[in-house]
């Protein structure tokens, strides 16, 4: 019997290859006869294409082929589909403008794809792309969310003359209005949730090849969900039979949402690989990543909280305008709706909530899920309101939260979700202790003596992970199922290969999932390998996003393990000449209950593949089982994030002096990996709060933050070390009791940081600071407040 593996910080199985240069990322793939692709992109935010002259470029050295939107249209290549249909308050479906992989007639954002040049070398492709002459008629552009619906704003698409994709709402408006009418206090705020660029350090890339021998395609691509990419590409864009296309997402260097979607480049080069009958590689330059990866956030929100005089929340009213960008990316439409408005109850018993969301088109890159996806935006709304309300009512900020915490579960929120379990008081209590909040006042006074302003910010967030169940999601507009698949192959000698539809791009599934399997089967960890990211080897998969892998993918694996054990019991019963009902299984051993008669799983596996003594009349040989798991509910991780800042009033510079996160992820499989996920999420949340902003010129639509010199990605010396703790309230509806941890940091942190800054500046009269709270913004807020006094 082995020691339990679940709950221990096993070192990662994947690290050796990553640390020695043995990782195999998409750009590392080099196929014989491979060509290189370069995409010619629009320099305009909005323009009519009068003509594209490729003649000069075609005769440039090394050029193999050039394709434009017209070529794709002639070949009947379809547009990139959107995977979630939102139905508006008017009962009408959202506006879904065509999204051709290469522009047809018009370009709609800077970076939009105009043509692809394929050449022997990348330099030749780039040189030739410069020779393509495009005659553009520049058109006025609409760039800012706030401008999209103004009268006379240029229309991004003819089918949406008012640039409105949908107007959608959730909640009981009448009940909310009534509660506001009689409330003793109303706290109101307006926010911009700043637009972000995901910036996985591995740029997007794809290598496509076509085989004439069996008319099949292989695509290596930086994807978080290769099966979904294949399904969308074959069924909706290229019209290819799915079994003729293999999509491999090998080692992927970070995703954070940006690699969920089907992008133009991978579709175009897959199609082109057949046209030229040679492999084609494309790898984004960083400037292309900035321009053409799907961006995140970009909300404009008015939010109000109604309270009684004791600080009890009565109702919340939220109006949000969300930017979709120029086209609908794969899951764009569900982010500011299904994954946003449903989270507005937070950890609180607010009895009535109403949220109206207007999604608009603009001449900017498509916007879709980015780490947290809707939930950071919701948490920001709720937690900024709560901290502000506490200050207005003169209440302690932990007390106002405790007074409104949900304490009884299951709990049905007024915004559709049914929380199965939680213990919000426990995470808050632990966070207060870990952050030494009791000592904060003394630290604040000490800082004051040095001329610095100290502030403490709270954020007690809720998350919904493992979006589910499929039938409910379907009724809300999902055009896909939300299950996961897993397969366990026990080899004749008892080693195991696991095939999972989840995909690891940094999360460490090769270790965590192996821990689950090795623990359940009672075999050494090194005898378990996890295979992911290949439609040719894995039966199906929905991939990794929304912190769903362990809760959904892990449960599919558990279900397959149950089948392995059930079949193993039958085989063991035969070998031990006992009744199947008498066989017990525990950590690697099948035993006749109450006796010392036993068979190891390796012995049972051997019998399954060498069935000389086997009940062949009742049982098939082999020990290989697969399972699909469709969750019955979301999981609901929750936690308390506390941020302590020190601000230099002379420069406006904010330093985070202490960041504490206590999270409840349910059962934790590998604490080391979970802490690492929290750290990374916090860095992105702090990045949003203090540093990062995607900025387009509001007139021309040029991307002003298109390089690392302009877009402030957090560097090592921008961030503190973190204090991280966990509390464990197991999820009630999956066998591992797990909830998911990938997005927590990015969800909780932004509100904690801004609440801390506002706390530090509140004595001066500052009520809000817009994200990112750059030194300039903080300095201006201080100046403006002083000028008012």
């Amino acid at each position: 019997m082995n020691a339990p593996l679940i709950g221990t910080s096993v070192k990662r199985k994947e690290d050796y290859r990553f640390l020695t240069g043995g990782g195999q990322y998409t750009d590392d793939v080099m196929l014989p006869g491979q060509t290189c692709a370069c995409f010619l992109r629009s320099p305009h935010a909005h323009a009519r294409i009068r003509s594209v002259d490729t003649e000069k470029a075609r005769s440039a050295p090394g050029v193999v082929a050039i394709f434009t939107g017209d070529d794709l249209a002639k070949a009947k290549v379809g547009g990139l589909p959107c995977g979630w249909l939102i139905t508006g308050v008017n009962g009408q479906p959202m506006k879904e403008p065509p999204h051709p992989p290469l522009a047809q007639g018009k370009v709609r954002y800077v970076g939009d794809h105009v043509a692809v040049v394929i050449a022997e070398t990348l330099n030749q492709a780039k040189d030739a792309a410069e020779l393509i002459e495009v005659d553009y008629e520049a058109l006025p552009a609409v760039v800012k969310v706030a401008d999209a619906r103004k009268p006379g704003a240029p229309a991004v698409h003819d089918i949406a003359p008012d640039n409105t994709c949908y107007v959608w709402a959730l909640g009981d408006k009448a009940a909310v209005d009534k509660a506001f009418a009689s409330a003793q206090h109303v706290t109101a705020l307006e926010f911009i949730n700043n637009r972000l660029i995901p910036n996985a350090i591995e740029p997007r890339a794809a290598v496509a090849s076509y085989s004439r021998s069996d008319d099949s395609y292989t695509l290596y691509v930086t994807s978080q969900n290769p099966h979904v990419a294949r399904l969308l590409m074959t069924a909706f864009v290229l019209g290819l039979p799915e079994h003729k296309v293999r999509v491999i997402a090998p080692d992927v260097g970070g995703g954070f949402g940006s690699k969920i979607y089907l992008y133009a480049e991978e579709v175009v080069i897959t199609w082109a690989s057949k046209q030229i009958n040679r492999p084609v590689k494309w790898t984004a330059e960083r400037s292309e990543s900035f321009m053409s990866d799907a961006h995140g956030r970009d909300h404009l929100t008015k939010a109000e909280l109604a309270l009684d005089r004791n600080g009890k929340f009565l109702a919340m009213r939220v109006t949000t305008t969300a930017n979709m960008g120029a086209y609908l990316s794969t899951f764009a439409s569900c982010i500011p709706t299904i994954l946003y408005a449903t989270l507005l109850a937070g950890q609180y018993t607010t009895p009535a909530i109403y949220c109206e969301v207007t999604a608009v088109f603009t001449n900017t890159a498509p916007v879709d899920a980015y780490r947290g996806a809707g939930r950071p935006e919701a948490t920001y709304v709720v937690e900024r309101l709560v901290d502000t309300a506490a200050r207005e009512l003169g209440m302690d900020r932990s007390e106002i939260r405790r007074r409104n915490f949900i304490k009884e579960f299951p709990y049905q929120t007024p915004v559709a979700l049914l929380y199965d379990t939680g213990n919000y008081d426990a995470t808050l209590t632990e966070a207060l202790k870990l952050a030494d909040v009791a000592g904060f006042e003394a630290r604040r006074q000490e800082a004051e003596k040095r001329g610095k302003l100290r502030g403490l910010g709270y954020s007690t967030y809720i998350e919904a992970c493992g979006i589910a169940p499929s039938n409910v999601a379907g009724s809300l507009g999902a055009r896909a199922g939300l299950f996961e698949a897993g397969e366990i192959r026990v080899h004749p000698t008892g080693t195991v290969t696991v095939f999972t539809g989840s995909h690891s791009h940094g999360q460490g599934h090769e270790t965590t999932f192996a821990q689950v399997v090795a623990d359940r089967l009672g075999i050494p960890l090194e005898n378990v390998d996890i295979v992911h990211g290949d439609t040719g080897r894995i039966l199906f998969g929905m991939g990794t996003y929304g912190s769903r892998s362990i809760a959904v993918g892990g449960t599919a694996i558990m279900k397959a393990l149950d089948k392995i054990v059930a079949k193993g019991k039958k085989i063991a019963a035969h070998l031990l000449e006992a009744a199947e009902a008498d066989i017990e299984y525990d950590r690697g051993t099948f035993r006749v209950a109450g006796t010392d008669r036993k068979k190891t799983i390796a012995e049972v596996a051997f019998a399954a593949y060498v069935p000389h003594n086997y009940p062949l009349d009742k049982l098939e040989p082999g020990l290989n089982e697969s399972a699909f798991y469709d969750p019955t509910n979301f999981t609901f991780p929750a936690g308390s994030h506390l941020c302590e800042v020190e601000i230099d009033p002379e420069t406006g510079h904010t330093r985070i002096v202490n960041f504490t996160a206590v999270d409840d992820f349910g059962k934790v499989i590998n604490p080391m990996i979970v802490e690492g996920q929290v750290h990374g999420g916090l860095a992105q949340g702090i990045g949003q709060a203090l540093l990062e902003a995607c900025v387009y010129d509001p007139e021309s639509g040029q991307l002003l933050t298109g390089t690392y010199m302009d877009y402030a990605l957090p560097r090592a010396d921008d961030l503190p070390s973190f204090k991280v703790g966990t509390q464990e309230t197991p999820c009630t509806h999956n066998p591992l009791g797990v909830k998911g941890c990938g997005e927590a940091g990015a969800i909780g942190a932004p509100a904690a940081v801004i609440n801390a800054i506002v706390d530090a500046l509140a004595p001066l009269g500052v009520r809000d600071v817009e994200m990112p709270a750059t030194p300039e913004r903080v300095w201006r807020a201080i100046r403006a407040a002083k000028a008012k006094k």
Partner: protein
Amino acid sequence: MGVTVSMTVNGARVSADLDPRTLLVQFLREHLRLTGTHVGCDTGQCGACTVHVGGRAVKSCLILAAQAEGAEVMTIEGVSRDGELHPMQAAFRDHHGLQCGFCTPGMVMNAIELAQKHPNPSEETVRAGLDGNYCRCTGYHNIVKAVQAGAAAMKR
């Protein structure tokens, strides 16, 4: 049109006839197929392409292969010996200083040089020293711990 470039890479003499605009990172990845050195930004800001040239950490997307003529170059593939991780590599594994692994080779190459210069680096020294290397996964927390532990282990 080509230039002939010769250098020592991970202890082996190599020579090639190259397009003069070939960057050192392109030479390593595409000609020598040493794909452990990564390209994250192609503008010298992310540090994923960091290698050692003459014992110093250099961003290999910022120099031409021809500029490394005659130099001793070491990439991540040359850091471990006989399958045993270098102390800095081991420290990254032991402290979970990597997630997706993409920035890791550059991070390790820079960290080894940092530890050679600062055998007992403070957290502040490590954070300042890693300023040229982006990581989007770890929030740097565990990288800082790994570099400090790796520096200590390198003294042994």
